[in-house]
């Protein structure tokens, strides 16, 4: 996978994960153009299209479009499954996920994605394991304190 974009029906970007090195300007241009192209497509059209020299796989879930750019040798149908798996993960984590969850907790959406995919490929095929890892990491975030050492004498409050 080269990149994944999540955007709303109005074309607002909610998440962008890039697996290829591109400058900020190039990313902006690609996002803008691709979002326009996909939003222009009719609902009856198929989920795959050729755009520039990439294969694009996209699917709409409620008000959000999930869009991936994959390589030539990648299986488009399994990419649809990957997108679906990600949506399921978000759904399980947030409990009936909606666009607002992703807007207000975008960093968490990224964390979940980074436990599911790495470098554009799936790193974990078990839903349970991904969610467990996220849970543990969240816990770590709550409980983590720097090693006490000489600071333990000064009773400093735990910072959030």
């Amino acid at each position, binding site marked *: 996978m080269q990149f994944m974009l999540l955007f709303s029906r109005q074309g607002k970007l909610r998440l962008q994960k890039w697996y290829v090195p591109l400058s900020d300007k190039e990313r902006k241009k690609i996002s803008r153009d691709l979002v326009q192209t996909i939003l222009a497509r009719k609902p*009856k059209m*198929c989920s795959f299209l050729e755009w520039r020299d990439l294969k694009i796989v996209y699917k709409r879930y409620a008000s959000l479009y999930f869009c991936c750019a994959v390589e030539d040798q990648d299986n488009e149908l399994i990419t649809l499954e990957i997108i679906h798996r990600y949506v399921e993960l978000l759904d399980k984590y947030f409990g009936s996920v909606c666009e607002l969850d992703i807007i207000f907790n975008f960093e968490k959406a*990224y*964390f979940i994605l*980074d436990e599911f995919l790495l470098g554009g490929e799936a790193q974990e095929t078990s839903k349970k394991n991904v969610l467990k*890892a996220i849970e543990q990491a969240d816990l770590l975030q709550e409980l*983590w304190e720097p090693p006490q050492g000489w600071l333990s004498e000064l009773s400093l409050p735990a*910072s959030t």
Partner: protein
Amino acid sequence: MPAPIRLRELIRTIRTARTQAEEREMIQKECAAIRSSFREEDNTYRCRNVAKLLYMHMLGYPAHFGQLECLKLIASQKFTDKRIGYLGAMLLLDERQDVHLLMTNCIKNDLNHSTQYVQGLALCTLGCMGSSEMCRDLAGEVEKLLKTSNSYLRKKAALCAVHVIRKVPELMEMFLPATKNLLSEKNHGVLHTSVVLLTEMCERSPDMLLHFRKLVPQLVRILKNLIMSGYSPEHDVSGISDPFLQVRILRLLRILGRSDDDSSEAMNDILAQVATNTETSKNVGNAILYETVLTIMDIKSESGLRVLAINILGRFLLNNDKNIRYVALTSLLKTVQTDHNAVQRHRSTIVDCLKDLDVSIKRRAMELSFALVNGNNIRGMMKELLYFLDSCDPEFKADCASGVFLAAEKYAPSKRWHIDTIMRVLTTAGSYVRDDSVPNLIQLITNSVEMHAYTVQRLYKALLDDISQQPLVQVSSWCIGEYGDLLVSGQCEEEEPIQVTEDEVLDVLEGLLVSNLSTPVTRGYSLTAIMKLSTRFSSINRIKKVVSIYGSSIDVELQQRAVEYNALFKKYDHMRPALLERMPIMEKTASNVHTMFFGGYVWYYFFTLNCAFLSLAIPPMTAYSKNGLKIEFTFERANPNPNIAVITIHATNTTEADMTEFVFQAAVPKVSHDLSVTFVLEWPSQSPDLNPIENLWRELKVRVAQQQPQNITALEEICMEEWAKIPATVCENFVKTYRKCLTSVIDNIYRNFWTIKRT
């Protein structure tokens, strides 16, 4: 200083903005606050500030001033800081800036951290955006982690290694030992990422491919277990166990089995099993079937298996899900060359897909349909394709028209069918046909001698209906010009001959000349056609009148033609019939009819050449012979390229005086965009005009003449004397001025001697 506002608070606030300007104002205010907070090196709230910055970055606002702050967060000991820091690095930094290298040390430390989630963050970041330098520095750490027994880290290390190999292919070797027992893992995450790693290595290196071929039995076993094992809640997707892993294994098998008989044989059974046992009611099953089909078609599978694969694709074509149909058409397109007959069986389904609503599916179906046309199905297929041409979107018309022409040319069952098909394309998609179609069609028509009457009649009728489609109009004009006599004499055998008079025909052609719809090229065709009819029709006076009117046309192209045709009527009327006679059959290599006019300063002469001369031998001809000046043209094909005609002009002066200011002008018509006409001026090596020795002879002649020799002996003596007396400086001068002489000649060649006009 109050604590910076929380992230969610900021998001809420920004969302209340009603205009772009309002939003921008809020963002700017917050950015200013964040900047001053960064300046104060506030450790406590750095994380919060960077998170807010990332949100604003997603909205499209610049956030580069946060890059260094991300690095500081990564270096922090707090997990929250690291999490946001690494996220920020992945979003704001890119490997083209040197700043990212500052991360390397932090990542190295974190790869060795005591907490696996920190190690995980580091691996993820490296595997997502690590530059080649970073990869080189840290490959060792990744390799270490690839050997760990912690499956959480091992799977991440595998994908990180994939990224390292992509960035620095030379490092591939160092990961080889660690791959030894990757496939014996029970953990699906590790299995999946290992297969990805092995795939990457095999694709990049033929040696690796050879090395890993021995893994085929193990891979087959794993796949078999996945299929045969019962319900596994952890990996189940709609009744299929770990489809992601299955697909990746199938893909690796494809690479390993390619061009290797033994490996291919070892996987035949499992492929057949997957192909027949996979549940196809949902997308996930079809995804596996799709990958299986791709593998079967790529390895050296037995024919039964290949037929099975194509049948699966055929079933896909009937699936309600358009995604499946799309994927099927794409795959069939890839296999149509190698398994042509098998794909033919699904021809009718493919043709049905031409009527699909989806643009991508339509295009694939069209490409596939053209690939399937052959001598047996041409009539049926063409009916469907012409219907498609009628109703399809404009973006398809050009490609479809070209495809129809190609197919018709290859497989036309009869000449009449061929011409009918062409007519149909020209009338339905006439404005979309490519430019080179016109000359190709003209050639086709010319060569179908027995169909001339029929063709010209049909084209004439088409012109009566519609003169807006230029390629159609051009071909029709040309035909009428050539075969107008057949039209008027009603010689058509194929269908009911129509009654049309010469005047009616001329009306139509003149109509084209004046119509706003006609392009200049079309007008040229019409005028030439009218001219040609002067030898086929009896109403010469009318034609003469038209031609003389256009002699003052604003369009330079038309004007030139008219003037020259006028001259043909006046001065060279005796040549007119020969010049305008019917075109002979053209060879495939000839691409167009062109008319060359030669006009000169000294004389005015023109003649018509048609490209048939490329196939026929043309005898030499005397173009001009008057007042002691004789010009001869000889024609031959160039060696080695027979598509080049070489016309040599021999000019002979039989008078006693020199002929000076010899100016030759050649006019070359604009034939077609593709045809290139180049004139190469060849100045023979023994040509006296540019030989400096001639100057010396003249010098000697002058000196000898001054001595006035009375007899031959005296002449000889004086010649020898005067020759010896010519000083060396005179010769030197001739040599010195030779260069200037040459450049001046070259200048004049392009200015006066040869004026190549394109008409």
